[in-house]
């Protein structure tokens, strides 16, 4: 591991003001420290933001404001989260292990890097790690990688479960940086790879996530389903965050759908939502909506299974939410 400096920020403003090229913010370190050991991340200095006073989960009207330094364990077990956003609690608690969730922060969870095997191996090319060096995953092992929104430069997936739920919940990410503060929508924080796969998000250097704001929960019921070959402690092959509201006449009056494990960003299934809204609730509509979304999938030879898997899980999730 390359030698680095370590400093602890006193408050968000000081963290941002003191940020210099080569710095990286450190949350729980459950991903960044691994990447430093592997030589994937080589910060000159770590600015520890895990102890900033951003560790509160607070009601904000009928919504919620979650500090960026809240630990995943605390978020997943928080009474307000369990009561208002069970989908989010399920997503958070389906990620990683108890030990990792005890350390991992909300901000860090959003900014974790892909687990693409080539990205994590500095002895091999990777456009995300070394722009222009090539993407060996496309001809090689992409079995866990993207089927939606990928580019010729990168087929990485974003590994977070939490972010998928946040994307379904229309969360807003509060950011402060050298150029001031701003609010980014979810989806909207993460970007698709295009020809700049080295950029996971739209954040500018020095920008720091301070909070995630959740609007009041969508009406109806919600679920988070995650598919993995191991019963726990595995990244999603495919996951679905879903919320569904059905009117008295059996017509879908509200729907949220987001997919994990399929794209460079948590994937809000807007086409499926559009197809469902106003349609009669039922398996036929759900299957049609899933097809509408997955028509745009471009699977590679080794990850083609993700398309029927995603379709099936979308339908399953919606059926489970149908009274």
């Amino acid at each position, binding site marked *: 591991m390359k030698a680095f400096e370590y400093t602890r920020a006193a408050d968000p403003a000081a963290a941002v003001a003191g940020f210099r090229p080569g710095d990286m913010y450190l949350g729980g370190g459950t991903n960044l420290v691994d990447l430093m050991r592997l030589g994937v991340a080589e910060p000159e200095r770590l600015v520890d933001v895990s102890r900033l006073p951003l560790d509160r989960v607070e009601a904000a009207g009928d919504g919620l404001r979650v500090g960026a330094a809240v630990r995943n364990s605390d978020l997943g077990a928080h009474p307000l989260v369990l009561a208002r956003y069970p989908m989010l609690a399920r997503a958070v608690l389906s990620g990683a292990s108890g030990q990792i969730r005890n350390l991992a922060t909300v901000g860090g969870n959003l900014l974790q890097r892909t687990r693409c095997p080539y990205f994590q*191996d500095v002895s*091999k090319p990777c456009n995300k790690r070394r722009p222009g060096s090539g993407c060996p995953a496309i001809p090689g092992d992409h079995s866990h990688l993207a089927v939606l929104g990928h580019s010729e430069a990168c087929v990485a997936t974003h590994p977070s479960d939490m972010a998928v739920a946040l994307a379904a919940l229309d969360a807003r990410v509060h950011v402060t940086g050298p150029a001031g503060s701003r609010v980014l929508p979810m989806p909207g924080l993460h970007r698709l790879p295009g020809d700049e796969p080295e950029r996971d998000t739209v954040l500018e250097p020095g920008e720091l996530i301070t909070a995630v704001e959740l609007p009041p929960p969508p009406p109806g019921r919600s679920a988070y389903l995650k598919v993995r070959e191991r019963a726990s402690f595995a990244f999603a*092959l*495919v996951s679905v965050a879903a919320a569904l509201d059905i009117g008295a006449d059996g017509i879908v009056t509200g729907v949220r759908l987001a997919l994990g494990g399929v794209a460079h960003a948590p994937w809000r299934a807007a086409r499926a939502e559009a197809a469902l809204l106003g349609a009669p609730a039922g398996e036929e509509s759900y299957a049609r909506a899933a097809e509408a979304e997955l028509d745009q999938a471009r699977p590679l030879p080794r990850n083609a299974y993700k398309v029927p898997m995603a379709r099936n899980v979308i339908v399953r999730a919606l059926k489970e939410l149908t009274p």
Partner: protein
Amino acid sequence: MNRVEGRDKVTGRALYAAEYPVDGVAHAYAVQSGIAKGRVTAIDAEAARAMPGVLAVLSSDDPPDLAGDADPELRLFSSRDVAYRGQIVAAVVADTYENARAAARAVRVTYAAEPHDVLLRADHPGLYRPEKVNPAFPADTVKGDVTAGLDGAAVTVDVTYSTPPLHNNPMEPHAALAVLDGDRLTVYDSTQGAAADRDTIARTLGLPPERVRVVSRHVGGGFGSKGTTRPHAILAALAARATGRPVKIALTRQQLFDVTGYRTPTIHRLRLGCDATGRLTALDHEVRVQSSTLVEFAEQAAVPARTMYATPALRTAHRLVRLDVASPSWMRAPGECPGMYALESAMDELAVAAGIDPIELRVINEPDAEPEGGLPFSSRNLVACLREGARRFGWEGRDPAPGVRRDGRWLVGTGVAASTYPAMTRPSQATATAEDGAFVIRLAAADIGTGARTALTAIAAGALDVPAGRVRVELGDSDLPAAPLAGGSMGLASWGSAVVRACEELLRDGKHGAADTAGEAGRGGDYARHAFGAQFAEVRVDPDTGEVRVPRLLGVFAAGRVIDPDLARSQFVGGMTMGLGMALMEESVTDAEFGGFGNHDLAQYHVPACADVPDVRAYWIDEDDPHLNPMGAKGIGEIGIVGTAAAIGNAVHHATGVRVRDLPITPAKLLAGF
């Protein structure tokens, strides 16, 4: 019996190889090849040497004096040739681990790369018949006329199974601390056999064995990967020589996947035929495996077919291809584990095709003597295991129809498979000494987490007829009386025999006993000695996602006399859990473009988590086998993994009607089959 070293382990007092405190220790970190085949043309270590704390850079620029006939995997820096990606081509020694690791990344190695060939396939033109397969079996055997047997069969199956490369992942990474004191070298190593490790290290370094000592009192798992000396131990010794300081090395999890061996991928063609009553008319098991260009390691995967079933026509064959890959090595139940996966899956297919219950098919084909060699079995209780397992599992009344049982959204199925593993012993020495009211047993055995120290304590206490609390066992040190390694499920049987004999002599002498079982161990020829077992699995398969869960695994084993029920159960259950990993998730992905393995950490190479094994049960049938050893024990370290994957695969077929013949059985493969 509770583990005698349990308190030391949970309080952190038990020292593992990398934990021995020593003054002035330096740290080594390996530089690994970035190509899969070719030559190193230049090593630029200038920048690395200038980095903080760097003491030395070792490479083929300054080849060490190593024995020419040593294992090529251990002849570090002796050649410029690269045989596989990840091979150690240089190393940095520095004052701290971090400095060594940082400087290792700064070593610039230039290569003349050649095209590599890293993929095993059934039609590889380089496949050949090896002279023998591990450890010394003929590669091919033929008895009777297989073609006629198949032609005359009422029912046949002709199927191909494959298993991927698999890696041992002991919790404790491979690690060593080398300390030079004058002309004497001590290596604290994480090894399954201190004496054998000492001999290999001495031979490789060109030292007389008496000048080398290996200490390995506690080992955090090995499964075979620590059964042979690995390059880290040689590297630590070379680095100590180069710097004059004690040198420690602990491989990273990623490096484990490169330089500590792995189970070869296997491809099996099984042709079985039976008559209308289920009697086998022919059994043909042909296996294809890989090895490196450095050594011929021929996994004996068709050997268990020589033991299992009565048939008038029996053919087994092994073919091997040498690829630009790391040398395969030992992994729990080498040979039996992949071989029985294929054979027991094919037997299930034959049972389905013949419309015979899979337990009955096995019972019908129970042999009177070992099918291939004709030797009588010293004891064989496969049928009893199948019957007892069926009773405990609730097999009776099972509907054989595939794909018809549902519980909520889950498709439910059950499967069975047989297990076998040979019962062997090797010569061992031991001493037993009365000291201050206690009895001290000394031998260079290894406790790799199995509880061997505890079991030997119990064996000695039994032989001396004293409470276990008065017995102390010293092991894990090559200066102790020579003993074979923990491997091949031979450890306890071999060591225990010597301990019993030493205790018997102590009782006669009153003060001291010393034993060497060279005369009595490993008697062959007269009997076929094997443990057997039966494994049962219940699986649930999600038809939407292809996810497989295993709510129940149950095994019944017949392995001679069980010496300690607690330790035995943990060996069986551990093996079965590892077998579940093999069935459903474990897979090292060969990187066709770059060579080596693409996945090399525990986030990418999945082993079962606790949630995957909610209910794994192991039982045994007591056997009284007088033809084994003084304890009447057969060895239990490996049989637990044998058959599990087949039982689960057979249950998946029963649940879904889909037969996945290529492990692991992943959601992707099942979805493709639905």
